């Protein structure tokens, strides 16, 4: 009964309700601007809400978090520039839709699916948090490494052009992620003895450059072409559409919750894995993936919003952050005199239920703000390109600088902008580069931890994999996906099922 009252706290206090609403609204816009991140917004809020009570402060932060994760999809759909790394996969099918004038439909689907994903994430948090966090803790370094390899194999589904070029791009991304002082031993890697290389290359700078600046440079060739008029009559997707994609969204939300709950992986990896999953299980999309498939929006958006609830699971049950934002929230709880840790759920279960309530409220606000004000957003794409292009470039510069207050990041961003421009011209996919950068540390650090723990002995390493059910499952998944991407698979499939099915 007490839990239920705590759960209702947000709804019974107008000022808390208002704060969640304001936070969500602000979050949508923060998330939409590349370079402004939810992490940044929440850490500023720590000082800002310092003198407040804990409940209002947390309400505002939760609103920003929920709205921000969703907001990244806006610019991904409208401008092909993901507002946040977790929206990279959304751009793949969202932007082709906007190019057809269907930005309204794309945003509508994205919003409803984010809502569904968010809800599933919160549901798992509320009902199964201790169970999921125990499961997350069983992940050993070798399991994280296998997960990263599974991620690297997504290169295949992210590069529909030439697979060779995709492999090159993915490997380049992993190498970019290794630049600078290695965080485990402080050895310099790829620094060429230059001090500016020491701190590495911010992956947000790479993302903004490759997607933002290179996109703007390409648009220069169409500067005089009239901008695409957007139809915004059918925003809310029909019940039929929602119902059709419900099974897929359940699966991708599950991916989101689990990846989100794992400390060290978050919504960005979840969204890309979900996209890959959708591509595998969807037999007959209305349009091919990459040309505006609805499934290509459903998967990443349900997954990254489900990852929000997931990230709260280790935070609430163990005091371990599920991602960067929950790490800051743990700091905020400390500042407000609470002791986040395994005892929080025991000592103060009200806090848990309050957070669940606030998350649900934020999810509803996200639906509300997501479905309204679309007209204003689509106006951005309808702006004359002669103004839009320079503005995108300026925002890219400020965004890259803002990540770490570093001019060096601006130079990297511009460099990768031009590099990405040529990559696009010559048919190299950009997605795998970002994927590589995101996965670089996960792969590298955990491979080393895993092999060090086994005393550099590959035999012991593989023995460890085959004797642990979790590792073995992941290992088999890696093998299956790898084989399915090589020619042997289609050959074997054609032999087994006849040519007709082998083609798809």
């Amino acid at each position, binding site marked *: 009964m007490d839990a239920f009252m705590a759960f209702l706290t947000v709804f019974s206090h107008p000022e808390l309700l208002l704060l969640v609403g304001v936070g969500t609204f602000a979050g949508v816009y923060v998330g939409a601007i590349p370079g402004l991140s939810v992490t940044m917004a929440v*850490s500023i809020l720590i000082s800002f809400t310092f003198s407040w009570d804990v409940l209002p402060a947390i309400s505002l932060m939760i609103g920003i978090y929920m709205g921000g994760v969703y907001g990244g999809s806006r610019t991904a759909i409208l401008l092909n520039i993901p507002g946040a790394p977790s929206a990279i996969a959304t751009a793949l099918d969202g932007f082709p839709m906007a190019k057809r004038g269907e930005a309204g439909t794309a945003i509508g689907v994205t919003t409803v699916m984010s809502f569904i994903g968010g809800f599933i994430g919160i549901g798992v948090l509320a009902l199964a948090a201790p169970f999921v966090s125990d499961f997350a803790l069983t992940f050993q370094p070798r399991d994280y490494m296998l997960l990263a390899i599974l991620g690297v194999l997504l290169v295949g589904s992210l590069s529909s052009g030439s697979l060779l070029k995709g492999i090159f791009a993915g490997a380049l991304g992993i190498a970019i992620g290794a630049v600078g002082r290695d965080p485990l031993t402080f050895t310099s890697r790829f620094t060429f003895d230059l001090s500016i290389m*020491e701190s590495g290359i911010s992956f947000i700078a790479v993302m903004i450059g490759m997607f933002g600046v290179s996109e703007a440079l390409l648009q220069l060739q169409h500067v005089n072409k009239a901008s695409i008029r957007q139809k915004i009559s059918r925003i809310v997707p029909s019940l039929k559409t929602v119902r059709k994609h419900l099974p897929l969204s359940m699966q991708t939300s599950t991916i989101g919750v689990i990846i989100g709950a794992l400390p060290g992986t978050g919504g960005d990896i979840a969204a890309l894995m979900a996209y890959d999953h959708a591509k595998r299980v969807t037999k007959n999309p209305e349009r091919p993936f990459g040309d505006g498939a609805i499934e290509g929006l459903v998967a990443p958006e349900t997954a990254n919003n489900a990852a929000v609830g997931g990230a709260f699971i280790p935070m609430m049950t163990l005091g*371990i952050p599920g991602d960067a934002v929950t790490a800051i929230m743990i*700091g905020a709880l400390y500042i407000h*005199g609470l002791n986040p840790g395994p*005892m929080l759920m025991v000592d103060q279960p009200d806090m848990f239920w309050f957070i669940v309530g606030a998350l649900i409220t934020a999810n509803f606000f996200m639906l509300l703000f997501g479905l309204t004000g679309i007209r204003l957003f689509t106006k951005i794409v309808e702006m004359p390109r002669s103004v839009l292009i320079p503005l995108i470039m300026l925002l890219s510069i400020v965004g890259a600088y803002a990540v770490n207050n570093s001019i060096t990041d601006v130079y990297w961003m511009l460099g990768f902008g031009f590099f990405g421009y040529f990559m696009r011209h010559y048919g190299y996919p950009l997605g795998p580069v970002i994927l590589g950068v995101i996965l670089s540390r996960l792969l590298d650090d955990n491979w080393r931890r895993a092999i060090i*723990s086994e005393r550099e002995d590959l035999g012991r390493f593989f023995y460890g994999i085959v004797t642990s059910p979790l590792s073995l499952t992941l290992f088999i998944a890696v093998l299956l996906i790898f084989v399915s991407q090589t020619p042997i698979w289609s050959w074997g499939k054609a032999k087994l099922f006849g040519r007709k099915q082998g083609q798809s």
Partner: protein
Amino acid sequence: MKKTVFGAVSALVLGMSGAMAQDYPTKEIQGIIQWGAGGSTDTVMRSVTPHAEDVLGGTIVMQNMTGGVGAIALNHVAGQKADGYSLLMGAENPLLYKVMGLGDKDYTDFTPISILALGTPILVASPDAPFDDYAGMMDYINEHPGELRMGATGPGGLPSVVTAMMNTVEGDLDVISVPYDGDGPALTALQGNAIDVMPAVLGAAIEGIRAGKMKPLAVFDLDANDKLPDAPIVTSFNADYSDYLPWGPFFGVFVKKGTPDDVVTKLSAAYAEAAKSPDFVELMDNRGFSMLAISGDEAEAFLNKWQQNTAWLLDDAGLTKKSPEDFGIMRPAEK
């Protein structure tokens, strides 16, 4: 409206002509935090600074500048004017940059405003570990050489110093050192049995210990900690540790050397006052830090001693890139 514009213009003129130190601060102060958002340095600085702002009557805009184990932020502040408008908010690491080959600048290029608090190291084990205290762990290492997995956070971090201490006192330990990029991820791994033992700062482990998710093996201090009175102190197992204790990581606020004395005094007073505020004291207490809040010569002496002790400890353990002697860091006097 006209008045506003006029005021703004005159403020600009005033600002440009260089205001007197007694008016300090006449503009926003930048606070550069060496570590990322959500880390312990970040939490400490973001909770003490609003109090200092009140005392100071100015605004301190805090920014996280990460990378290079904090060296990026340190070099940034060192590159600004010594006018008290750029504060460095950092932890103990810079004192080891020189010997670790991570940079050629450290806190000797800065004036301490306040050394806020000192942490206590503690050795924790996963609940499934086949031993319950420090002595049991030593027996286990002797019986199973090369089997115990001990967490680490890279050279110069707290675990490396504690490990160096253990190697010096107990003789070289045959363990596997598994590197993590912070004590947070390492303690998570500990709870999942990916590593067996981890030296960490008490504050980071305290909640896990209370919940029974970690076993405290030994507190690295001379006296029992009042937050964990039942956890044994390491000197009760081996008295030789007392040569190196108390030792711990700390947090501090710094300005570049050459900043006018009255500005330093004003800032020091503001942070000294801020460190007394009850909610800050409570926060530090909950996280198991002991308050220092020292400044001036006392702080300089503290930094000096800390650097001597730690640099030579690491050097003797063979973990340094360059000898402390090369930088004029004296070997601490024998006790």
